[in-house]
C-alpha cells in the first residue's frame, strides 16, 4: 500500500510537470502574502525591549490580527505593505489565544481568509512572513522565510517557570521563527492559504527549550470573527483557574497521605491511605506513585496539590498511578 503511495506520488508529480496546477506560481502568492502582512510599532512595556512586531489583515475593512503583547501597551502604529501609516485601535483581545485584533481606518485592504479546517499537517512546507528584527521599514515588503511544520501538537498544560496562557493546538515549526519582531507574522501553506500566526518567544515548559511555533488559523478563526462582529468572545480560558481552598480538592480530604515533601520536586508517592476515604474506596495503596491527574502530568507533590486546587470538590478525580511496574487508572469519587 505504501509502495503504491510512492508510485502515485511520482506519477502525480510527473503529471504536474505538463499540467499546470490550480495554485498560482510561488512568486505571485508569496508577494500576495506580503501585501497582507503589516508592521506594528508600539511603546514597549519595559526599557530595552523591542517595540515592534508583525500582524496581518483579516478583513477588507482594515482588521488586523496580531500577537497580544507589551508592544500593544499604547495604541499602536501600523505600516501597511505599501508604506501607508495608520494609527490603530485595539478592538478586542483574547489572552488565552495570545491574540489581539486591531482596526485601522482603511478600506479595500487585501486580507487572509481564515479556514475552518486545518490546512497543514506535520511535514508540510510553509512560508513565514514577518517583520523580524524590523529589517523591513516603510514600504519595504516583510521578510519571507521557508520551513516546514515539524509537529502538530498541544502545548502542555504543566505549570512551570515559563508559561503561556495558550493551551491549545500549535504548529511546531522547523524554521527559526523565534526572533524579535516575528510575533504576529503570518504562516502560509504552499497553496498560499493562511496556516497560522507566529507566536511570541516561548520556552516549552516540559523540555525547557525555546520553541518555534505558530497558533493554527483554525484555532483563531472563531475568536477573530467574534471580535470583528463585536460579539463577546466565546473562547473559554482553558488555563483552569485555582478554586478557593474550601471549594477544591486536596490530598488529605481524598485520603491521600503523601511521603514527606522534603525536596523541591518530591515525587508524588503515597505514604498511607486514610481509612474510609475516596482513596481507600479506590483501593489505592502505600507506595503508589501518582503520574497523572485528569490527564495532566504530575512531576512533584507541589504539582499534585496545585492540580487538585483546580478541581471542584464535588467532582470525580481521575488518577493514573504506577504500582511497581503496572500503570493503573483510578477514579476517586468524593
Amino acid at each position, binding site marked *: 500500500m505504501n509502495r503504491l503511495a510512492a508510485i502515485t506520488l511520482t506519477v502525480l508529480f510527473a503529471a504536474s510537470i505538463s499540467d*499546470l496546477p490550480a495554485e498560482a506560481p510561488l512568486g505571485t502568492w508569496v508577494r500576495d502574502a506580503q501585501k497582507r502582512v503589516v508592521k506594528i510599532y508600539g511603546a514597549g512595556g519595559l526599557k530595552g525591549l523591542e517595540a515592534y512586531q508583525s500582524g496581518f489583515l483579516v478583513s477588507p475593512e482594515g482588521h488586523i490580527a496580531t500577537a497580544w503583547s507589551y508592544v500593544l501597551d499604547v495604541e499602536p502604529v501600523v505600516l501597511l505593505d505599501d508604506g501607508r501609516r495608520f494609527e490603530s485601535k485595539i478592538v478586542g483581545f483574547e489572552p488565552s489565544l495570545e491574540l489581539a485584533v486591531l482596526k485601522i481606518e482603511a478600506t479595500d485592504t487585501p486580507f487572509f481568509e481564515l479556514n475552518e479546517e486545518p490546512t497543514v499537517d506535520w511535514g508540510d512546507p510553509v512560508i513565514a512572513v514577518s517583520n523580524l528584527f524590523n529589517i523591513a521599514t516603510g514600504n519595504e515588503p516583510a521578510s519571507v522565510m521557508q520551513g516546514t511544520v515539524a509537529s502538530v501538537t498541544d502545548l502542555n498544560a504543566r505549570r512551570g517557570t515559563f508559561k503561556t496562557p495558550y493551551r491549545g493546538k500549535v504548529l511546531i515549526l*522547523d524554521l527559526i521563527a523565534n526572533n524579535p519582531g516575528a510575533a504576529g507574522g503570518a504562516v502560509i501553506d504552499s497553496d498560499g492559504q493562511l496556516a497560522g500566526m507566529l507566536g511570541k518567544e516561548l520556552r516549552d515548559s*516540559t523540555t525547557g527549550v525555546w520553541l518555534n511555533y505558530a497558533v493554527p488559523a483554525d484555532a483563531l478563526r472563531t475568536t477573530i470573527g467574534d471580535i470583528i462582529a463585536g460579539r463577546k468572545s466565546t473562547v473559554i480560558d482553558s488555563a483552569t483557574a485555582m478554586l478557593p481552598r474550601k471549594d477544591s480538592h486536596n490530598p488529605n480530604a481524598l485520603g491521600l497521605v503523601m511521603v514527606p515533601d522534603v525536596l523541591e520536586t518530591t515525587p508524588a508517592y503515597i505514604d498511607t491511605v486514610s481509612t474510609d476515604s475516596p482513596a481507600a474506596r479506590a483501593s489505592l495503596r502505600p507506595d503508589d506513585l501518582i503520574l497523572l491527574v485528569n490527564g495532566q502530568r504530575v512531576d512533584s507533590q507541589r504539582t499534585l496539590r496545585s492540580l487538585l486546587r483546580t478541581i471542584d470538590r464535588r467532582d470525580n478525580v481521575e488518577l493514573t498511578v504506577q504500582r511497581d511496574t503496572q500503570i493503573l487508572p483510578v477514579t476517586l469519587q468524593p
Partner: protein
Amino acid sequence: MLRSFKFSGTSLLSLIIIVCVCVPCAAPAHADTEYRQAMAKAVRAAAKSVLPAVVAVEIVGTAQGPAGEVEQDAPTSGVMIDTDGYVLASSIVVRRPAASILIVLPDGSRHAAKVVSRDYHRDLVLLKIETSKELSAIEFPSKLDVQIGKTTVAVGRFGNTASPIISRGVLSGVERLDGVALQTDARVSAAFYGGPLIDLYGNVMGILIPAVAGGAGSDPTGWYDSGIAFAIPSDVILTKLERLKSGTDIKRGLIGIASKTKDPYDDGTEIAAVRKRSPAEVSGIKAGDEVIEIDGKAVRRHQEIKQALGRFDAGETIRIKLRRDGKEIDITTELAETIPPLQPQRLGVLVSELDSESDGEQDDKEQADDDIATVVVDSVLSGTPAESKIKAGDQLLKFGDAKISSVTALRSLLMSAEPETEVELSITRAGNDETVRLTPAMVAGPSVMQPPKAWSGAESGDWATEELKLPDSGNAAAFVAPKATDAQQNLGLLLLLMNPSGGSPTEVLENWREAAKAAGVVICAVAPEDSRRWQPKEINAIGNFAAAVMKKAPINPNAVAVAAPGAISGTDAEAADSMALAVAVSQSSTFFGVSVSPKTRSPAMRVKENDPSSSLQILLPLSSEKELPEWSRAIKKAGYPVVLGGDTDTTALLNWVRLLQAI
C-alpha cells in the same frame, strides 16, 4: 511488519532527478512549490514507516533542578527495538535518578520501564516494558549508506499527545566524537533525543543522542537546535544489542599510553610512557615504541591514535602494529574499562632540551632518531629527591628502560610512575655515562619546593601593566609583565579570574605587581563579561587570554596556572573560584595548575581523567588532608594531585605557579 514497506528506491530517485533537472532551468515558477510538496510527502512517508516504533519517554520525579537550559525531566523519544518490549533511548533519561521512567506508546498508553543496561560510551540506554500490547519494532540495517550530503530526517514524539515531530536536514559528517557518531544539521531539539535519524527511504541511519564535542562545556544538550546533532549509527548499534539485552553495561575502552608530544597534532606517534597496570603495560607496549597501525588503520599522529581507538569498547581486543628498535611488531591488547588513577611523581629538577648540533653537515643517523632531543638539568631544587643525586649540567638519558626523548616524555614518565618505587636514571655527567638510583616524590601533599637561587637573583628589569582586549570576547583584562622581553626566561603565567564586581583588572594588578616581579610570574587578570556572574561560555575565552599573553613574554608553557582570589588563605570562595576549576579541567592542555579556595562550590562539570602529557595539579591553601573539601575526592580519583599550600600568601602562590615547570 513495519519493514515490509520499503520505499521504491528507483521511483523516489527518479523524482529527485526530475526536480534537479527542472529547477535550474526554472521555466514554470510553480515547480518550486511542487518540489516542496513532493519533498514533504516523501519525508512524511519515510517518517511514517518508522513512527509505529517511535515512542515518547517521560521522566517522573527527578530529584534535582536543571543544570542547563534543558529540563532534567524533559520528555524525549525512544525506539522499540523488538516486539518483546525493549526500548532504546538516549542517556538523558537516566541523567538524574527518577522515581519512574514511562514509555508512551503511539496509542497514548503509558508503561513503566526499567533500565536494562547502559552504553556509557555512546550515550544510549536500553529500557524494557512489560505489556501484552502488540508492538512494532524498528529495524537497524547492518549496512549504511553514509554519503555526506544525503537527506536525513530526525523523527521523534513531542508534547503530551506524543505527536510525531520531524526535522529535515542532511548528513553532515561521519565518525565524529572520536569515531562514534554521525552528524546531521537537522534541527534536533530536546524532544528528539533517543529518536531515529532516517533517510528518505525510511532506513534507520542511527539514534539521536545529546552530545557536544570536547571543550564545548559540560552540558551535553548545549547544542540543541544549533545545526549540529549526533546519532549513533545503526550498524554499530546492531552489534551491541545482544550485549545490552543481557544486562551488560558498555564503557569506552582505555589503553593507557601517553604521548611524547605535548600537542597531539604534532607529527609522530612515539609513546612517552605506559600507564601502570594498563592494557598497554600488560600487553608489553613500552615507552619509546612508535605506533604504526591501530586495528589495520595507519596512524601518523597521537590525535589519529585517539580517533582510531575512540570507537572501541572496554573488553574489545584490538591489534596494534608498533615499531621498536627499527623492527615492526604486532601486539594484541584487550582494552580496559578503567586504569588505576595517576599518582604523579617528581624528581625536583628544572630541565631544558639541548639544541641538537644543527648547523653544518647532515648526520647519517636513522630518520627515527632525528626527533630525539637531549634533556639537560638546569638546576636541582633543594629538599627534593634529586638533591645530592643529580647535578646541574647532567644529561638525562633513560628513566628505567624508557628513553627520555623530550622534556614532555620525561614529564609523562614521572606522571605515570609507580609511587614509592626506586628507579634507575641513566645520565651523562661531565662526559661520563653514569647511573643514579633514586625514589621520586609524590606531587600531591604538602608543598615543599622552593624556587632556585638563579631565579631570585636575576635582574628582571621594570614590570608594567597593560590592558588586553581580545576579539570575540567581552571580558575586560590586563596583564603585568617585564618591559624588556629578554630579561629572564622560563617565567610563570597566572590567569587570575576576578570575582563579579571585583573592580577593574588594571587596579587589581597594582596590588600584585611587586610580587609578580619578585617571583617572575606574569599575571593576567580577567573580569567576567557580565558584572553579576561568570558564564560557562567564557571558559574558552580564558584559554585564549592565556595564549595571547604567552606571545608577549618568555613564559614556560608548563608553568601556566589559573586561580581565583580564594587561593589566598583567608579569602572567601566566590564565583571566580568555581569558574577557575571549570576552566582548568576543561582547558587542561593549556593549564598545568589551578588554585582556588577549599570552600569552592564545585561547578557542574564532568571530571575527565588527568592526562599524563598535560597534567594538571591543584593547590589549596590548607595544611592537612583532613580539611580537604568533598569535591576533591572526585578530583583525586581522576588522577589529579592535590597540593597542600599551607598558609598561602601571594608569594607562595606565585612561586608554586613558576615551579609547575619543575619535574
